[in-house]
């Protein structure tokens, strides 16, 4: 038993996180910045941060992940990192030649008090930023929030820096995507396309972290939201922001700066959340919902009804990020499943409140915890107290799955031991079918593997 060190008795911990269900802000900022075309993320801190984030993203996507670092030294920690960042900006434009550098801070640079805005301004004044090139900066201290906070802060920085309101209103809708996969971002665009809606999706990691193999290595792949598109977001009719934690601050910033109103909705995972998303798009873009979308919805409902007998009453444990967990548990509850344990390392009081709202009527026994000490150790202790039928979460659940013999569907970040997430979306109605397929396969594989010979079934 790999996790033999987990005791089943839950004791409140004050000072300690064991097996975290989150990571720190900068990796989120890096992921968001990769979703902007021609942008090189830059980590203003020690070298290790950048290396760790690149490694984690590389393991998750099996793709090269590029980012530069200020390579802090002892001197920088005493005298500040200004000299490092100025030199870095110079070097990066000189050799790697991105269109945009997206600088994010780290715990170190924040603690010593580096003011990124001031340093970037100095770079501008000193002529280190070539004509037509840009440096955007976001403050992402690792000791506040989680990786999701970093993602949100970087998005906010992009719209604050680039989006611009002219006198000409555009017939387009902004979509601010929560932290989802390249495949999901591609699917969001496809859905908008079906609705004959012109949209700008920010960020957009499709064609960046799922690039085809053609025998060449491209530092800046063809995908990503372009700078021009981000600029134009200031003239859009409306913003549809998917996920309070990851996108609300950017939506608010855009509203404040360019008076583009926003509708905050969930990441469209599952039936109802996708309904709301489609409705939001339809309202925002003043377009009707085409028949083909209704058909996709019908297909999802068809699969749910066909297979519901395998789902009802199933106890599920989930961990991950608030914006994706909330619609996911709603989807499960709608199919009469029981999300009994929900854990997210990302803080925010609203999470537990909203989760309980979804759960209280049908799963009053559910345990929900987020923020400090909401970690995989706690999750495992809950499971040891009373087991579940299914696990849904990132790769770090595999220890629990193995030790307790529980079917496991990988979802979230990071997934470093399976592929598929880059290519097969879980958002939208068809994404819902994908979620169902994977849950059912996991549950049925266990039935097949463990059922007694006499009740082993061919047809399921």
């Amino acid at each position, binding site marked *: 038993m790999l996790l033999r060190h987990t005791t089943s008795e839950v004791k409140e911990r004050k000072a*300690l996180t064991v097996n*975290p269900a989150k990571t720190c802000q900068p990796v989120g900022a890096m992921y968001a910045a990769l979703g902007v075309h021609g942008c090189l993320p830059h980590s203003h801190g020690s*070298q290790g941060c950048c*290396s760790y984030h690149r490694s984690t993203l*590389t393991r998750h996507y099996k793709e*090269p992940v590029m980012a530069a670092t200020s390579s802090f030294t002892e001197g920088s920690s005493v005298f500040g990192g200004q000299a490092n960042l100025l030199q870095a900006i110079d070097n990066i434009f000189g050799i790697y030649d991105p269109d945009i550098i997206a600088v994010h801070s780290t715990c*170190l640079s924040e603690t010593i008090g580096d003011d990124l805005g001031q340093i970037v301004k100095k770079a501008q004044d000193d002529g280190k930023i070539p004509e037509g090139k840009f440096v955007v900066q976001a403050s992402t201290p690792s000791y506040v929030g989680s990786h999701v906070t970093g993602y949100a802060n970087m998005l906010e920085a992009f719209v604050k820096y680039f989006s611009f309101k002219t006198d000409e209103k555009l017939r387009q809708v902004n979509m601010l995507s929560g932290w989802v996969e390249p495949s999901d971002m591609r699917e969001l665009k496809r859905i908008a396309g079906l609705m004959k809606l012109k949209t700008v999706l920010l960020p957009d990691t499709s064609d960046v972290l799922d*690039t085809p193999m053609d025998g*060449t290595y491209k530092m800046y792949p063809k995908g990503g939201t372009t700078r021009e598109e981000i600029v134009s977001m200031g003239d859009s009719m409306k913003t549809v922001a998917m996920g309070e934690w990851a996108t609300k601050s950017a939506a608010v910033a855009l509203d404040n700066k360019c008076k583009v109103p926003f509708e905050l909705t969930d990441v469209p995972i599952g039936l109802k959340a996708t309904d709301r998303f489609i409705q939001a798009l339809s309202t925002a873009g003043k377009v009707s919902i085409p028949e083909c979308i209704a058909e996709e919805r019908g297909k999802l409902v068809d699969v749910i009804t066909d297979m519901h007998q395998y789902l009802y009453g199933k106890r599920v444990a989930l961990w991950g990020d608030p914006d994706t967990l909330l619609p996911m548990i709603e989807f499960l509850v709608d199919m009469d499943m029981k999300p009994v344990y929900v854990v997210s390392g990302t803080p925010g009081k609203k999470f537990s409140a909203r989760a309980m709202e979804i759960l209280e009527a049908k799963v009053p026994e559910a345990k929900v915890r987020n923020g400090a000490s909401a970690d995989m150790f706690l999750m495992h202790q809950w499971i040891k107290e009373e087991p579940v039928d299914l696990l849904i979460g990132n790769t770090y659940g595999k220890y629990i799955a193995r030790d307790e013999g529980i079917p496991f569907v990988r979802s979230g970040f990071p997934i470093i031991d399976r592929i598929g997430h880059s290519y097969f979306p879980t958002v939208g109605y068809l994404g819902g079918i994908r979620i169902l397929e994977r849950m059912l396969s996991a549950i049925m594989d266990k039935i097949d593997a463990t059922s007694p010979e006499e009740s082993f079934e061919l047809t399921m």
Partner: protein
Amino acid sequence: MSNYLKDRESQILTKGNDAAEISCDKKSLAGSVSQRACVFCGSRVVLYPIADALHVIHGPVGCASYTWDIRGSLSSGPQLHRLSFTTDLKERDVVFGGEKKLYHALIELIDKHQPKAAFVFSTCIIGVIGDDVEAVCRQVTKEKGIDVIPVMSEGFNGTKKDGYKIACGALSKLVGTNNDYTPSKYSINILGDFNLAGELWILAEYYKKLGVEIISCMTGDGRVEQIRRAHKASLNVVQCSGSIMHLAKEMKEKYDIPFMKVSYFGIEDMSEALYEVAKFFKDDEMMAKARELVTNEISKLLPALQPYRQKLEGKKAAIYVGGAFKAISLVKALRLLGMKTVVVGSQTGNAEDYKLLKDLCDEGTIIVDDSNPNELSEFVKLTGANLFIGGVKERPIAHKLGLGFCDHNHERKEALAGYVGMMNFAKEVYASVTSPVWKFVK
């Protein structure tokens, strides 16, 4: 070579063209897409394999998240090292200090897990906010009666190599704390083998056949108790010298234990290691056993390698690994397969290793220190390499370029040390280089 950061020119040379020695041991340039990590990373990887110790990371959550069970250092017993413990510092801790939090975390964890010792890793901001980690460790040591060892590995405080040195310092606090042990006549410590994919267990078998006792393997399948009595060994056998040489040198000074640098990769170096150890003990019987072992293994291995060699003859390889010492073995092992090394580099090699590399490599080989993806991609194109040997960040780049790949870093899935390791290496290189999948590349 105009396409590189100008200040990096001294860190790149082509054998035959450049007379000067390569420059290394330099801090990375700000703004580079370096493949290197930090001081904390260096310390964490060296101490990580001590499986019955508690490893607590004092800082914000990231440093613990990113290093949670990512290295395949196998343990034959406890698995405590594979869990991730962190004080998960928040904003108020940064303002008011995290000492109390650390203290409570340690007390709670020691009570719960009863570890044999504890390592407390200090991350970037700890140095800046001024937590007295050493004092907390002293206090907990006193209260709980186990060694709680501070590892002052603030990320910015040098390079990954400095982190190795700090980890060696932490290990040396344990070494020599148990004197009640009588070793057998011939005893060694293995330093710098990380038991990736169970490699240590292969080596242990060889040493057993020679009649040599392994008192401790500090960095693979490690146990606190073994490290405590490591000073009773007659010899330190050091692999991956970059990470652990400091400890070997210190034990030489403090306990007069000599050390030798070896490598377990490839036939030549593996055999050399066994012969050197036998030579050290000046025991004819042991030497005879070593000869027998080597002869046996080689007589099986060489014919088995032949079919692979036939297919690989003349193919070209690029190597980019953590330390340059390992690269030397790889160049030799590749030669055994008929392959030529056309690019070789490392994140943290030192001048001595680079000199050996330069002597060893063929004319025209590009040698590079602290490289980055653009350079590596350019070198590979320039030289027409067929294989890339590297780690997690290099793999997708190699694949995008249509090259075969072998992970010789901590994510390797097959043991690559020893004779069986050479066989695995040949199979892996062969399977990847000659794979039909590269045909689909335009």
